């Protein structure tokens, strides 16, 4: 069964769920709720990133581009009058095609080549978005994007969006867990740990890496779709190379390979810049130094620190 969830984890999960559900009751500020909504969306994207990078070991700076592709596809489609229900499917199609275009030629590349290629891919997508002004609104982005609406019903207001997004996050986590405890999940981790041994054990490592990449892209694309429909405003800045780096650091700080770590990292690094806004430009300086510090001192991220504190706690790896 779910080996990753030993019975001792249930109280912690229940507690987290209770806290998550109680938040809108405690914090009434719409701005805070919107920030949390963005954090939840980022968490879904980072869980997606975890498949390819945390588990399969493929460095991927293109995740922000997939996020953006999903968002822009949805925004353009709904503004063009298409019913919302179509947009998740459209986003997935666009993102799958893009991930194949990027993934197929690059799965064999080594680490720094893969890093550069994915950065390059992200840049090309961003440039395409920025310069296709009539459709994408260029650098100003798109406003007044229609919201989620299925047969005329949809969440109204930040709080309802919050609950919807929490539910979506739950689904994202569940699927990730199922993948982890399947042939595919084990194959991904085996590929990262020793590609040769994995191959000799019957794992098609190229196909595994590509699948991890694609699933991750789908997560990002769907998150982008929800982003466009919940936040209702998008611009190329939210999906730039800087964002790609940010997503990667969320993964690292939370703990690569740990699903819970993805969520923690995403929430932490979405809230932190807002909470530390008074630092101005110094925030980014400290952020950079912080990343270096985490990598040097605790490369397993917060998840590894947590598992040292409570060695019997089930790691949602």
């Amino acid at each position: 069964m779910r080996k990753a969830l030993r019975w001792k984890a249930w109280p912690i999960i229940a507690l987290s769920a209770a806290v998550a559900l109680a938040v809108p009751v405690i914090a009434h500020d719409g701005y805070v709720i919107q920030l949390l909504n963005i954090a939840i969306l980022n968490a879904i994207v980072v869980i997606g990133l975890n498949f390819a990078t945390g588990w399969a070991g493929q460095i991927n700076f293109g995740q922000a581009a997939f996020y953006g592709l999903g968002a822009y596809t949805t925004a353009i489609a709904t503004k063009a009058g298409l019913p919302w229900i179509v947009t998740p499917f459209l986003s997935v199609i666009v993102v799958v095609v893009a991930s194949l275009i990027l993934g197929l030629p690059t799965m064999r590349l080594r680490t720094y080549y893969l890093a550069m290629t994915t950065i390059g891919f992200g840049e090309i997508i961003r440039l395409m978005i920025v310069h296709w002004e009539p459709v994408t609104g260029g650098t100003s982005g798109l406003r007044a994007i229609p919201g989620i609406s299925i047969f005329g019903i949809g969440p109204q207001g930040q709080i309802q969006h919050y609950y919807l997004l929490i539910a979506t996050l739950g689904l994202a986590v569940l699927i990730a867990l199922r993948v982890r405890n399947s042939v595919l999940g084990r194959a991904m981790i085996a590929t990262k740990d020793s590609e040769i041994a994995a191959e000799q054990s019957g794992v098609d490592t190229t196909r595994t890496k590509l699948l991890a990449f694609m699933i991750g892209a789908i997560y990002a694309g769907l998150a982008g779709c929800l982003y466009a429909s919940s936040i209702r405003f998008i611009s190329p800045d939210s999906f730039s190379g800087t964002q790609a780096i940010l997503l990667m650091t969320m993964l690292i700080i939370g703990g690569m390979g740990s699903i819970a770590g993805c969520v923690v990292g995403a929430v932490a690094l979405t809230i932190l810049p807002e909470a530390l806004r008074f630092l101005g430009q110094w925030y980014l300086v400290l952020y950079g130094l912080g990343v270096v510090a985490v990598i040097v001192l605790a490369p397993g991220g917060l998840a590894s620190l947590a598992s040292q504190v409570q060695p019997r706690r089930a790691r949602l790896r």
Partner: protein
Amino acid sequence: MQAIIGPNGSGKTTLLNALSGASHADAGSIRIGGNEIFRLKPHRIARLGLARTFQTIRIFDNLSVIENVKVAAGCNMPTSLFNIIASNARQRQSEAAIDRNSREALEIVGLAGRANDHATQLPYAQQRLLEIARALASKPNVLLLDEPAAGMNMTESMTLLNTIARLKSSGITILLVEHNVRLVMGISDRVTVLDFGKKIAEGAPSEVQRNLLVIEAYLGRRHRHA
């Protein structure tokens, strides 16, 4: 059980690499049970029934002991992504079968008690056993063992070789590459000796032991290895 012995550098591991697809072979033909496997990708060869262990331990550090074994156990049980996400009956059946096969393999090498431990928690000798369990889990027809006793003390080596000898009775063809001649002689049916990449002797252990070329290869060297 066929053993391949030879001094260091004679090409034993290279041979295994060529057989299992890890290295590129220039020419020739390799067949398993009539199926040509030459130049196939390693994972295909593995799915056709060839499994191997490595000279330097290559276990999966980020998986538990049983998960290590499950990687190989699942090699011939393709599951679709849909089944995985839906976690339907088919998926659960498949996982149950993988779990069974994996535990069996762990039983054979005596690691069943440590199934849920992190692979890195195992001591060296048991990690070697884990590699063997993993190789067994794919239910191979041919098992290539590359110096499985390397780095073990006498007791551990004996236990290991007894385990391997027991495997013979299960019908698997075993190709054992070993550096230590004495360990090998008792359990092998046939021995091939390599030197500088060439076969210099082949036959029953007793014949090979008396072969002059073999003795010279092991003892008579005055010059350095290439």
